[in-house]
Structures are given as structure tokens and as C-alpha cells.
């Protein structure tokens, strides 16, 4: 029997091309997953295992990295450690095996909280302002609308770090340096242009008739916006929120420059872990692993919207 003569569909991909496509996707997934897997595994290694060469794939997992991440420790003599009572926790025990005792909590958790507050705060503000202005641009005759929209877009044309020094000086004058408010405002300013443009696209797609119908049904424009436009824009809002959140969560340069103490976020903090008592790669890896969790959860929850957000506009009517 010859397969060449079998009728094949024009639109349905053949088995072979499906297999090739599948193989490419799997290969790509492996390539992108390797660093993440590496970090995840390293976070459970002991410091000697983490720097052994060739890298160990099979190893004795330990929570040492996580203990070191969340605590500060001091070196003590074995005699002193002997004199202490029984260890109160796993971390206590691990630390004592290294001839150290826990001195107190590290700054990781407060830094992580800063990241949460600043990233979610700025995302909320950017999406809130973005939705309102996108609606305005989409529905009303704004004088010079095209120019204003271009101006908004142009704020993204230059790498933000190019204005780092003026912003640093301004923030120092205004007392916004090393404050959560300052960082929220900064990230909002960077994200709002993206939010306006993305959301304008989504809102343009919602026919005006819906609001007109609602206004005729006895609602004010604001009520119509809330009850009719917003529910239909949720996909766009979710997609925009993820993009804004990813930026604010990962931002490093401004965080290094403008925060050092109470408002410091996790990204500039994580590298500082290395310096505390030798090259503590497992602790760094643990810090990174935990840092990945919120964005991962958020993205998994909203993955459908994210996908729609990425492919949005690919097919125009």
C-alpha cells in the first residue's frame, strides 16, 4: 500500500509535521527549563555540593540553603555549642553542624514583602489609570489624541535607566528615595504607557453599542462603564496586569539605585546574600526560588488571559 496516494487534508497538519512541531516545542521547553531546574535543585544542595564539578544531579537534599536565607548566623566554638541545650528546630541543628548558631532573622522576608507591596501596588495603579485613560481615548474625541498617545508611547522608547541620575536627584530632593511610595510611583510611570496602549486595543474591540444600550437603559456613562465595559474588558485587564507585574517584580536597576534600606526589594537583596560567610549559592538559589513563586502562581492563574493578550491583535477583522 502506498501512503502517497492517501487523500490528505489541506488545513489539518500531517502526522509528520505535528511530530516535528512537538519535538521543537519540547526542546525549547527543556532549554528554557534547565536554568530554572538548576536553581531549584541548587537550593536544596549543601554548599560543597553546589560548587562540586562535575555538577551533582543526585545528592542528599538539605534545607541548609533555606535556613541560611532566612537567618543570620554567628560562628561559635564547639565548646560553646556543646553547652547549649537541644536544638529547637531543623535549622538550628543544621546551623550547629556548621559550628554556627542562629543570631536572628535575615532581611529576606521584609525585602520580599517590599517587593510584593511595590509590584502589586504599582500594577494596580498602572492598570487603574491605564483603563480609565484607554477608555477615554477609545470613546471620546480627545483633542490631539494621536499626538498624546504617541507621547505616551514615546516614554517607552528610551531605556528607563537613561534617566536614572535625574530621577535619583529628584527623589533625593523630594524625600522619595528608599520609600515604597517612590518605587510604586516610578514603576507606575513606566508601566502606565504600556497599560494605556494594551488596554486601548482591548477597549476598542468592545462595541460602543453596549454602553449606548446601557445609557438608554437608564444608566450614566460611569455606571455603563462599570457594569458593561469592565466585565467585558477583564481579559485585557488581566493580560495587562501580568505584563505590568512581571516588569515591576523583576526590575533591578532602579531598585539598586533608589532603595538600600527599608524599601529595598528582593532583586537587589538576593545578590547580597552571596557575601555573607563565603559563597553561599544554595541560599541565593533558595532566595531566587521563593522569589519566583508569586509570579508563577499569578501567571498560572491567568494563563488563558495572558495567551490572549500576547496573540491579541494578531488577527484583525
Amino acid at each position, binding site marked *: 500500500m502506498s501512503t502517497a496516494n492517501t487523500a490528505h487534508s489541506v488545513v489539518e497538519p500531517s502526522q509528520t509535521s505535528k511530530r516535528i512541531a512537538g519535538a521543537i516545542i519540547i526542546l525549547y521547553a527543556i532549554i528554557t527549563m534547565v536554568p530554572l531546574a538548576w536553581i531549584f535543585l541548587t537550593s536544596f544542595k549543601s554548599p560543597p555540593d553546589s560548587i562540586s564539578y562535575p555538577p551533582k544531579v543526585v545528592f542528599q537534599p538539605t534545607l541548609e540553603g533555606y535556613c541560611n536565607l532566612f537567618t543570620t548566623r554567628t560562628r561559635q566554638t564547639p565548646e560553646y555549642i556543646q553547652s547549649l541545650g537541644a536544638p529547637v528546630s531543623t535549622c538550628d541543628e543544621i546551623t550547629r553542624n556548621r559550628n554556627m548558631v542562629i543570631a536572628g532573622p535575615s532581611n529576606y522576608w521584609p525585602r520580599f514583602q517590599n517587593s510584593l507591596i511595590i509590584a502589586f501596588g504599582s500594577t494596580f495603579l498602572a492598570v487603574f489609570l491605564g483603563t480609565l485613560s484607554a477608555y477615554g481615548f477609545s470613546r471620546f474625541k480627545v483633542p490631539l489624541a494621536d499626538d498624546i498617545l504617541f507621547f505616551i508611547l514615546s516614554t517607552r522608547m528610551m531605556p528607563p535607566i537613561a534617566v536614572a541620575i535625574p530621577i535619583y536627584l529628584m527623589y533625593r530632593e523630594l524625600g522619595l528615595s528608599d520609600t515604597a511610595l517612590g518605587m510604586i510611583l516610578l514603576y507606575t510611570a513606566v508601566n502606565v504607557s504600556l497599560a494605556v496602549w494594551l488596554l486601548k486595543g482591548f477597549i476598542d474591540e468592545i462595541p460602543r*453599542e453596549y454602553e449606548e444600550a*446601557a445609557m*438608554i437603559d*437608564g444608566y*450614566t456613562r460611569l455606571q455603563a462603564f462599570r457594569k458593561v465595559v469592565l466585565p467585558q474588558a477583564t481579559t485585557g485587564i488581566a493580560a495587562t496586569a501580568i505584563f505590568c507585574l512581571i516588569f515591576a517584580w523583576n526590575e533591578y536597576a532602579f531598585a539598586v539605585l533608589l532603595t538600600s534600606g527599608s524599601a529595598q526589594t528582593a532583586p537587589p537583596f538576593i545578590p547580597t546574600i552571596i557575601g555573607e560567610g563565603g559563597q553561599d549559592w544554595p541560599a541565593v538559589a533558595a532566595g531566587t526560588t521563593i522569589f519566583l513563586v508569586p509570579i508563577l502562581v499569578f501567571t498560572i492563574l491567568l494563563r488563558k488571559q495572558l495567551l490572549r493578550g500576547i496573540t491579541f491583535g494578531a488577527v484583525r477583522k
Partner: protein
Amino acid sequence: MAEIRVDNLRKAFGEFVAVQDSSFTVADGEFLALLGPSGCGKTTTLRMIAGLELPTSGQIFLDGEDVSFNRASARDIAFVFQLFALYPHMNVRKNIGFPLLSQGVSKAEIRTRVEETAKLLQIGHILDKSVSGLAGGDRQRVALGRAIVRRPKCFLMDEPLGTLDAEFREVMVHELRELHNRIHATTVYVTHDQHEAMAMADKIAVMNHGIIEQFGTPQEIYNRPASMYVADFIGSPPMNFLKFTAGVQKGDRSISLEGVDVALPEVHQDLAPGELALGVRPEHIRFSDSAALRGSVYGAEYLGTNQIVAVETGKGLLKARVPADRTFRIGETVGLELNSEKLSLFDCASGRAVLSSLHTEARHG
């Protein structure tokens, strides 16, 4: 229910004038169709009555009250959109009840009124369905339900049947008229389809380039078109025009066309010599061997109950609607007899009908 009065209404978008000084009155309980090609200003007129656009000048009265600049939400009118605009995130019940919610009607009453409305439109069985899965006709009924549930002063409809397929449109035309007969709501209905307008409306306003060319009952519009535009737009095939150069005088009862005297309704107007057009509907032409006006058959279109025969005359192609029992050969010479009581005469320069015993008064906006 209410009377709608539109007074010298005008709307300009920058340089472009969409509606020019329109005036008309829709009596309480009347069904008016705004008929015209796309871009003629009919939808803009409707949207101004609804409050979705504000007039550049002129006034709109609802039940005697000037609402020209009132908010849409304050006018107590219902609007059925071309694409229905059913809220996709609500089910049918919530869609219909949505206007009542804004008026602060109690939940129990919303429930009863939504159910009454659904019963009237025979959509009770789909109340809890999502609107996205509905067929065109049901969407249409839900949109109507949302309009009638709050018993508004009037209904405004913007080509609500435009997206339905031809077969189903006939059903909905019938249903809409039925509904109107039952609830007697003042209705303004925008359409570009003359059949819909003729079948449903009590009054028709034919619009072109922002001007109301003629306002009247379907019979007046069809039998006594006020302008060549109306005569051409209404009827299919449209009215035939036989152009000739002559002058007419008050009291004339005939004109001379290619040396043939053609009788027509008594002319009530003096007109200096110029280009005129004799307007004759296809069904007002009869083939008669004895007739003086002659032409040769150009083609025939068989329609079952009758046929449209195109005849080449010295004054151009003429289409006649004649019984289907006779077969014509192409090129065959026929005599044409025109029904003299139904003829219209138009002044080609202005495009308007010449006053006659048929066209007693040229009513227009």
C-alpha cells in the same frame, strides 16, 4: 406612549452635514419608518432622538417636552441596535431586566415583568440561557424584550433586521408589526429596505443626503412620489422615466411624447419649457396592439405570478409588469398603453413632481 416631534433638526460633523433641517411628527402609537440609502442621515436622526448624538440645531419634543439636549438615560426611550448589543456577560433574563434595575424596581417585580415580556415574545424557554449561544431570531427577540420591558415612551430601532437572513426577515417583519398592533408603541424604525418599510410602517420618511424627500403613508409615497428620487428609490423595478422637452400649463390634460398624445392627470401648475420626465410605474403599463406608443421587446424576466418585460422605446428602456400568460419574442414590436390616472410628471431640473390632480400637494420635509 408619546408623540415625537422633530423641529428643524440639523446635525453637522465638521464640514459634513448629516441631517439638514428635518421636521416631522410621529403621532402617539404611530409606526414611522425612516427609509433611505446608507449615509442619508436616517441613523443620525434616530440617534439624535435617542440622545446618543446631540443636534447642531433644532429641537426634539417628546410628548411636548423639549428633550433636545437631555441625556439618553433621562429620555425614557428604548433603542434596538442593529447588532442587538445584548450584554454578553449576562444571561437572557438579566439582559431583559437590566433597564428595570436602573430604575430601582424591586427584584420580585423585575422577575414578574421579565417573565411577562418573555411570554409576549415567546422566549420563556430561553430565559436562563447565555445570550452568546442564541440564534439570530432569538437575539432579536431578546433585544425587543429589553426594549419593551420598561414600557418606554417610544421605541427606536436601527435596522434591527439587517443581520438576519432573507427568509427569517420576513418572519420578523410580521412579528414586529404584530407586536406593534398589540402594544401600540410609538416607533421610529430605520431601514434601507423598502419592503420592510412598506410592510410595517404607518408613515414613511424617505431620506436622501440628509434631507427628507417625502413624508407620508406608504400609499402616498408609492402612488404620488414627491420627487424623482423617491419614485426611483421605491418600487422594484422602480418607476420608469420618459424624458422629453416641453412646457406645461395649468389645466393641461395631456402631453405630447414623440408625436403621440399621452393623457395624464390635470396639471395644476405652469412650467416654462424645459426637460420633463413622465413617470410611470411598471404595473401601469399594458400591452395593446392598438396603442400609439410603440417599442420593441428587449428582454423578459419571468417572476411566476407576473413578468417584467423591458421594452426599448425612442425615449429609452421601459419596464412593464404584465401577466405571465403571454410569451414575448425579443425584438417583437408591442404597443404600450399607459394608465393615464396614475402618471406622474417631474421637472428634471428640480427633480420635484409637477403639481397635478394626482399630486395635489407635495408634502416633504
